[in-house]
């Protein structure tokens, strides 16, 4: 008798759980307007991306063409597949008149990047960040090697 009660109980319990799933898909079926998917090529102008979306690494510059990168190579060391390479040049410090190192070229190989975000986490001065630009396809592999600091740019004052 106990077996029979358990047997019938399983049937009703499983029917209930099946109905739970079916109710959800039924709700989805009759609410097609709530779709989260964005119709990308159609809404290219009005596309909205999440705040944490990882497009590519960029280095923001302010209006005086100054960036925040000190060339500490934390990002280069943090990168698991050698995407970032920092090349140096010597500059004269304006206040002290001494020679010191500064970045010449911040080389970023987009073709090798896996968008893991480790370089951004490693950066102590928030010099680099992930942009929302994701249309990277090109016909030439060379154009994927990017120099992130703009020509003639300098280190922002007060960052070091």
């Amino acid at each position, binding site marked *: 008798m106990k077996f029979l009660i358990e047997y019938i109980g399983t*049937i009703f319990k499983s029917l209930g759980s099946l109905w739970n799933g079916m109710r959800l898909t*039924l709700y*989805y*079926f009759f609410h097609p307007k709530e*779709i*989260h998917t964005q*119709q990308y090529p159609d809404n290219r102008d009005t596309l909205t991306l999440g705040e944490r979306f990882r497009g590519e690494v960029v280095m923001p510059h302010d209006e005086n063409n100054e960036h925040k990168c000190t060339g500490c190579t934390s990002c280069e060391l943090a990168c698991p597949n050698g995407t970032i390479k920092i090349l140096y040049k010597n500059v004269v410090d304006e206040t002290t008149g001494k020679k010191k190192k500064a970045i010449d070229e911040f080389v970023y190989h987009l073709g090798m990047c896996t968008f893991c975000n480790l370089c951004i986490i490693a950066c102590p001065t928030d010099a680099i960040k992930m942009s929302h630009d994701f249309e990277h396809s090109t016909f030439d592999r060379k154009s994927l090697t990017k120099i992130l600091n703009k020509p003639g740019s300098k280190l922002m004052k007060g960052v070091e």
Partner: protein
Amino acid sequence: MKYIYDFSFLTSKIHNWFLAHCSSGWTILWEMVIVGLCAITLFVVLGLIFVYMERKVAAFMQFRLGPNRVGPKGTLQAVADTVKLLMKEGFTPQAADMFLFNLAPFIVLSVSMLALAPLPFAKGLQIYDINIGVFYISAVSSISVIGILIAGWASNNKYSLLGAMRSGAQIVSYELSAGLSVIAIVAFAGSMSLSDIVESQRTGWWIFKGHIPAVIAFVIFIIAGTAELNRAPFDMAEAESELTGGFHTEYTGMRFAMFFLAEYVNMFVVCAIGATLFLGGWMPLHFGNLSGFNHIMDYVPPFVWFFGKTFFLVWVIMWFRWTFPRLRIDQLLTLEWKYLMPISLVNMIIVAFVVIMKWHF
């Protein structure tokens, strides 16, 4: 106007026209040709509609949009896919059994075609009214497993063979509970002829008239029917995740398309039987004494009722497919032998009791 409500006018007109122009033997031959052409046209149209419907229903149930590029709202997507399949190379593996490999899709397709014969599509529109229609359909639909087994064996591929064996085990076991739930309605109606069963539902559909036993039989029929169709959540024969494609792993081009088409036509046949037995076939929705309501329902043509009910059941089966996770083969057989089979046996006894006591309306 009367042609829409009763197709026997049209069929008798065609029959008389042929009789006036040629001998009775030629008349039958020409009529068979016409019916065959109609069946093939129905096949292709249904295949196209179902493929599009399946993709759209799946998309909406998963919060997507589905095909929306080819033609208005993506309606021409299925046509484009068919053209693509026609252009593809029909490839036969070297180690395969050539004859059986090429024969199998035709067996599967012609079996699902045979099952169309006793279906009453509308009033007076039935290809062949046999007095054992229900029995005929359940007999014919179990032949399709032979086609699947041939396909699996002739491919000479372990995935194909495993898929075919599973399909065999599945159809043999689920045929039982599907048959038993059909027997419940046969007991209610007192006839095996599908046209008689439809006629017996003039006062109300069996799912309403037959109380709870009919509802149980209906649920079991839908579950067992889905299993017989080899559709997810019972798609052990295809099993894309573990058997790559099951019995049609090695098939390409048009022969693959035939399996695909046969699957969708089988879905139509199962849903049409379900609609005919439980939901009244082409009979309009009637409630006992509400003569005004009944009169309004009579204005809807019978074939609209039939196809409406069938498409509703097709939608329900698609709803299952895109909601439930797939079963393992042992879970599948447990469901049949430990649950559906005993329930439908007990249900059949209850039905017999209800019929003897005349408790149904």
